């Protein structure tokens, strides 16, 4: 009992989030109908997350600590991952407060549920046995289903929710089936014991383990939307309200990435048939994910949908960092995650403003944005160029890191595929930049209603996108220090 209590001290960030969640529920009951109280609710939510972030930031360098009878592990890797996710959620909160895409009376619920998803993500990033992984995925998913269907009077949002549930339900089942197989082969669900047991397996059992792991991977693959489990994501991303889409393309994706890194290292960290087979499979999946994401993004008319496909491609890029199975790769993914966060937030912020203004995110609606609102157009261009991986923006450094991880372990073929995908992605990003900055608008009336704070936030998101592309040593060191701990 005492041990459990002392373990709690490592669990403070999550506890803070849970506390914030409960507080928000109470506040909703008291302030619910008054729009005046709403500001108060946001401030509370943001303060809660800020505290969680601060606690996480203070504990980055700490020694790895397994807690709750080895169910969770708190190491610097998980801490940094959590920090990125908390930051992403904070960004989404602000977007939610501005967006009209979420019903005014449901905004508190939105906050509560995103925090719930965030807690699921945090659980995933420090999961230390198979059951916690499953628990994390389910926490993440169930609330996500509700979020996708949040615009309840909108047919497409409901459709998104339903599609999400169906896919999620099936993949969760398959995943659980995989877990039971793994347990059957190894006799344990603890990550700390698995590497040793795998080494002792004979060749026949090893052969059995791979299909079991693939079944297990289905659940994670669905979360990060890698091919062939990506089918749900464009429709869900398009149908959901913008803040939800933004949230989906950051937090669940990174949480899935975190858990994928951990299980990959747990199961495949020593040389052998198993590793070769898995790395080979991952290479194919990563390449396919990039190609499918980028090629389908080319033809999209809706910017939100385009960003959704591009986020699939980005997941493929991050997967490249996993399959090299070393510290350079993990460092590259963390760096990628941190920079991807700012670019994505920025791109979605602008898209959200356009949707609020015109009611649609059609490509044409961006025409001549530069003459209507130069700041917004320039920020969007910065975000898009960064997503395409062009220096001096941070997206380039992120891709550069992944590329060096690949080339360091001599995966030249995948490196070539990855850079070719950069070229493909540049095409559709560039087309949007062209629409915004080159094409003449039908009318040059400026976009009104973008207050000072909103502009400041857009600039505030744009600055790290550029700064992290030039002065990236500090972030690099943080990512480098975030070692993953596996017994």
């Amino acid at each position: 009992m005492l041990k459990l209590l002392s373990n709690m001290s490592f669990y403070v960030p999550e506890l803070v989030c849970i506390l914030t969640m409960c507080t928000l529920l109470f506040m909703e009951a008291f302030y619910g109908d008054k729009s005046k109280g709403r500001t108060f609710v946001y401030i509370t939510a943001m303060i809660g997350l800020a505290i969680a972030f601060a606690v996480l930031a203070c504990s980055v360098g700490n020694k790895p600590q397994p807690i709750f009878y080895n169910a969770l592990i708190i190491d610097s890797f998980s801490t940094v991952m959590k920090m990125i996710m908390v930051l992403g959620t904070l960004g989404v909160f602000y977007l939610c407060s501005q967006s009209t895409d979420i019903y005014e009376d449901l905004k508190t619920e939105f906050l509560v549920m995103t925090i719930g998803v965030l807690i699921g993500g945090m659980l995933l990033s420090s999961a230390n046995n198979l059951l916690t992984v499953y628990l994390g995925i389910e926490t993440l998913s169930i609330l996500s289903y509700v979020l996708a269907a949040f615009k309840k009077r909108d047919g497409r949002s409901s459709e998104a929710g339903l599609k999400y549930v169906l896919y999620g339900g099936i993949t969760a089942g398959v995943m659980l089936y995989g877990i039971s197989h793994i347990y059957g082969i190894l006799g344990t669900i603890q990550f700390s014991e698995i590497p040793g047991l795998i080494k002792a397996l004979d060749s026949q059992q090893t052969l059995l383990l791979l299909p079991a792991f693939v079944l297990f991977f289905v659940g994670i693959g669905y979360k990060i939307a890698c091919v062939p489990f990506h089918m749900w994501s464009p429709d869900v991303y398009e149908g959901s309200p913008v803040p939800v889409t933004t949230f989906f393309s950051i937090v669940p994706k990174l949480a899935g990435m975190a858990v994928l890194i951990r299980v990959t290292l747990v199961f495949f960290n020593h040389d052998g048939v198993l590793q070769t087979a898995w790395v080979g499979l991952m290479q194919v999946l990563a390449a396919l994910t990039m190609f499918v994401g980028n090629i389908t993004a080319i033809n999209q008319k809706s910017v939100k949908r385009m960003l959704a496909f591009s986020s699939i491609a980005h997941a493929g890029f991050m997967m490249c960092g996993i399959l090299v199975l070393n510290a350079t790769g993990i460092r590259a993914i963390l760096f990628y995650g941190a920079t991807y966060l700012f670019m994505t937030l920025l791109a979605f912020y602008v898209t959200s403003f356009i949707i609020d203004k015109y009611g649609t995110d059609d490509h044409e609606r961006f025409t001549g944005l530069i003459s209507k609102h130069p700041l917004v157009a320039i920020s969007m261009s910065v975000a898009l160029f960064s997503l395409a991986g062009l220096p001096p923006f941070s997206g380039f450094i992120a891709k550069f890191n992944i590329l060096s991880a690949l080339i360091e372990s001599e995966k030249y073929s995948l490196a070539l595929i990855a850079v070719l995908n950069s070229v493909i992605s540049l095409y559709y990003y560039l087309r949007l930049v062209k629409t915004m900055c080159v094409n003449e608008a039908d009318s040059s009336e400026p976009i009104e209603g973008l207050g000072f704070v909103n502009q400041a936030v857009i600039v505030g998101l744009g600055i790290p996108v550029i700064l992290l592309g030039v002065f990236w040593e500090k972030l690099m060191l943080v990512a480098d220090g975030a070692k993953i701990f596996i017994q």
Partner: protein
Amino acid sequence: MENLLSCILWLPVVGIVAVLCTPKGKDNAVRWISLAVTTITFVLTLVLYCNFDTSMSEMQFAIKVPWIKAFHIFYSLGVDGISLPMIILTSLLFAICIMSSWTITKSVKGYFALLLMLESSVFGVFMSLDFFLFYVYWEIMLLPMFFLIAVWGGENREYAAIKFFLYTFFGSILMLVGMVALYYVTGQSSSSFDILALQGGNFTNEMVSIFGYDFHFNKLFFWFMFIGFAIKVPVFPFHTWLPHAHVQAPTAVSVILAGVLLKMGTYGFLRISFPIFPEASVHYSTAIAVLGVVNVIYGAMCAMAQTDVKKLIAYSSVSHMGFVMLGLAAMTVQGMNGAVLQMFNHGTSTAMMFLLVGILYERSHHRWIIRPDGTKGFGGLFTQLPNYSIIFIIGMFASLGLPGLSGFISEALIFLGIYERFTTITVIAVFGLLLGAAYLLWMFKRMFFGEVIEECKSYTDVNAREIFYMLPLCIAVVVFGVYPTPILDIMRASVGELVTLLSRF
């Protein structure tokens, strides 16, 4: 003196800030600020020239500051005899381009800010001694170019801009793979992006496996880099972006594109490909020479078929850059010297031609030698615009290599250098000169002689501003045609060093 290079590199950036801070509506202030900045930069490059020690082949004015320690990346600048002529050319052309852009009225602030950004990034490419820094500048350059073509260009500008961007990005991304591979091949302890440290290439035995096929590290990445630079030059199969970009770009951007950016490709060969992969370079020099001669002949043939005068000049650039490739492929002292000199001379002469076409376009608003319906676009300009015609004649003859003007000397040096190694190719390439004379003179005949077309009568001759900015180029073309020694002196030591390095393989 130590910070002179940084000053030149960052002064345009200061200019950008100043331009962006000028209040709305003060377009003239923007123009004067840009002119002041580029002129000061030009003066600074002259200071650089005066303090340059021509007897040294090493990097001068070098500065090396750590940037990203974890990756051994440095902010490392320096100039030698190969980059100095390019830097002077760049600063000169940019100052001239600012003057020639006085008539731009569409979002003036953005235009001049982008032009200054372009100048800074081009300087960055020519000065970087760190491969990573080089690459970053190489890519940054695409952004202003894209917007300059796409916003201020001609009718079909969007297509041209996107094509240019994608093509170059494709090339540079291959270079990126090569760059990272070079970093890791040298082993963790000595890994670096330092261009000078990578010279001499000691990785002949490394193998690389791509999609199951094994390649020699040396040869594979030589070709990766080659494609990256060749797209920029542009070398024959990769040249298709160039006519579009040139025709659609506004005059000043065409001048920069032809005058400076194309040289970045050949500069890349001299700074990166040849020193880092000397063995592969020597091994494939025949291929480079063949591509060069194809460029010469094919570019000239295409130029001959054009009815749009700007497209004609654009193709003539393809042809002339072919001579540079030939000079590089020779790998002899004369050939290399000729190539670098040709880079400089082509920069001045082609800039003249594009500026002149631009001046004409401002009066006529079309560029047809023969219109699509078969009627003449221009005629009898010689009697209408006498001063213009004189400048045009100087530029044209410099371009076709008339003895006494700049083009002749560099081409002669190139032929001298290459004759012994590739006799057949030299003989074919000489026909390129003939073709060059043919298409230029034919164009001149069709535009400047014959009956005066009705609409040409309203054209006014060049004004004082136009004469003023054409004058430095005219002087350069004539002076360096008679007395090229100053430039040859600058480059002699560095080129000699490179040739010695290559001759060991």
